[in-house]
């Protein structure tokens, strides 16, 4: 029972349960809060995997920026509370069934392919590679082009969002 396993079970349960709860609530605000909880669990999982930079970024970007945006929109639009199985229940049950089938298939494929055999986990290297220095070094030497392009993408998204959400011209 190593520490990693315990932490995995803890954070994993938080992530899984909060995700299920997120999709089943009627109140949109509650759903958003559960998603934030999910992100927190994910961040913990990243820490158990020695990915420090990603864990921090997850909290800052996702939980801090994106979810705040969602919350603003929800509170702006005040959506109605919908009953879950009120409309076309047959279709929804069919959708759950399909998702379940795919889950079984994925699990089967993962287990059949035995990824942990033959690949010894490289702990030391993974510790080193998850640090922010290493990420920074890679980002500015090998991956500088995608980095700059991501900047342009964000610029375009900003302009797009402003134009789309603007009130009409008087």
């Amino acid at each position, binding site marked *: 029972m190593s520490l990693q396993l315990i932490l995995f079970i803890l954070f994993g349960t938080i992530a899984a349960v909060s995700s299920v709860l997120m999709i089943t609530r009627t109140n949109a605000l509650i759903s958003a809060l559960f998603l934030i909880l999910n992100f927190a669990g994910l961040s913990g999982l990243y820490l158990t995997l020695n990915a420090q930079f990603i864990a921090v970024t997850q909290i800052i970007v996702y939980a801090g920026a994106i979810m705040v945006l969602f919350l603003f929109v929800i509170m702006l639009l005040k959506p109605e509370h919908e009953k879950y199985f009120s409309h076309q229940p047959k279709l929804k049950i069919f959708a759950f069934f399909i998702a379940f*089938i*795919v889950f079984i298939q994925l699990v089967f494929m993962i287990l*059949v392919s035995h990824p942990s055999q033959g690949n010894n986990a490289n702990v030391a290297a993974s510790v080193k590679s998850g640090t922010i220095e290493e990420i920074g070094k890679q980002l500015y030497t090998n991956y500088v082009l995608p980095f700059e392009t991501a900047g342009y993408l964000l610029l375009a998204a900003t302009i797009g969002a402003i134009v789309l959400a603007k009130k009409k011209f008087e």
Partner: protein
Amino acid sequence: MVQLIYLTTLLPLLGFLFNGLFGSKIKNEKIIGIIGSSTIGISFLIVVGAFFQTLSMPVDQRQTIVNLFTWIKVGNLDVNVSYQVDQLSLLMGLIVTGVGFIIHVYSIGYMHGDKGFGRFFAYLNLFIFAMMNLVLGSNFLLLFLGWEGVGLCSYLLIGFWYDRKFEKSTTSDAAKKAFIVNRIGDFGFLLGIFLIYLTFGSLNFNDVFARAASLNIPQYVFNFIALFLFIGAMGKSAQIPLYIWLPDAMAGPTPVSALIHAATMVTAGVYMVARCSIIYASAPAIMEFVAIIGALTAIFAASIALVQNDIKKVLAYSTVSQLGYMFLALGVGAFSAALFHVMTHAFFKALLFLGAGSVIHGMHDEQNIQNYGGLKKYMPKTYVTFLIASLAIAGIPPLSGFFSKDEILWSSYADGNIIYWLIGVVTALLTAFYMFRLVSLTFDGKERFGHDKHPHESPAVMTIPLIILAVLAAVGGFIGIPEIFSGEHGNQFDNWLEPIFQPAQAKIAMFGVHSSLEEIVLMVVTLVGVIGSIYAARYIYIKNIKPAEKLSKRFNGVYNLLLNKYYVDEIYDASVVTPIVKGSEIVLWKFADIKIIDGLINGVANLIEKISGSIRKIQTGVAQFYALIMMLGIVAALFWIILSL
């Protein structure tokens, strides 16, 4: 000059293009007329030059082939555009370009003021182009090209005044009738050509005729080839049963009737049979058939001409009858006699038609001879030339018609049957009678036209051609004086053509020798009968018409039968034309086209519409539905991956 013979077809073609493209823009009739006529005039001079050049060659080397270019070269079929300049084609070429030139000049005056002046000369030039190809061609394919070409020009020119009414229908109907009936004949002709290629392996005249003379080919093949070729001749040269288009072709302008339906196109069939003489000589049964058809046509058409009242109709039936004479001559083996009659008939029949045109022109488009009478003092030149032509066609010596017709009658007695001779003589008597009925009712006697008509003589551009043709009709016969008068080998015409027909004559079994006394006796008998007919006609139609009227009343049925042309057109209409038209309408149009073909196309369209109508319901517009379908796809893909693991 012989090598330049291709100019005789090229120049008329250029004339056609020029007058056809620019004729409506050049309003000057003189220029159009001069260009149209001079192309034919130059062609005539070239043919004359080639004629004299050939005359200076030794007798057995008189055939020259002028090769222009290769036309079709596929497998074993090797056909060139090449012209064969020999005695027969030169003779036909002289007739076509000579008489053609005279008629072109005449048309300048006749068609004066017509709004289609340029178009007329363009079509006439095109006709000469096609006809020269027909007579000069050295293979069956070029001959067939000219054959079809003259048929086309006949259609274009008969329907020239396309907005005029003609009898019970329009001129276009007459043109269509000519073309369709010709087509029926052409079908037979094509079958003949196919059979020739199949049997002899070539379409070249020299090859085919050499092989026909030497190879051992079964009799029935020759019979079929000769029969099919003759069906083509029946259509083009207006024999029974395909003569019905020629009287209707009188809907066209008179120069057209003169050129195409008297002098040249209708003799194409005679030319073709003469050219293929060796094939016919090898099929005696078909030659018999040709002679029978010729004789029957001659007397049949002459009987109809007796009672017709339209001046051009009389001449049309007369043409059919004379063509019957030519085929009678061909059928009994007198090939050069037939061609002699072609030449003299071109002279006097063209003259008759042009004279009729002059009368019609002077009487302001009145064509019924019952409304003529006493015109000889208004149109003296027309009267004299018309009279000369009528004497020629009746067979009065020393005019040309006497020599040619007499030779035919003698050949039909000597080489054929006495029945042929009898039919020929009766036809000659009828010919003399109806021709002088025509002359008497038109030019002699009392004037029967109203005072609104002011008949006048035609201008010089129309009368000079008449005079030229009259001279030719008068003296043209002297080159073919029969041997009893001119001695051994004295018949220049026969001598000229002899090398062409020598292989055929060798195959025909010649019956015994007849004495010259028999020939002179028959000649005198015919002559007496003809003179008697002429006097009878003049008496009845000038002085005392009562016998004719009494005869027509007593035999009223026969009179009506003749007047209505034996109801042949009506019989054809009821038995052939109407069933085909009705059948096409009911079976082919209403059923096959509308129900089956349209139904098929519309059915396919309907099917696609129904299928797409049901498939479109998938597009619900709700994005989640699409995502669900995508998940189904992912399920399937993952199954596939799992199964392949």
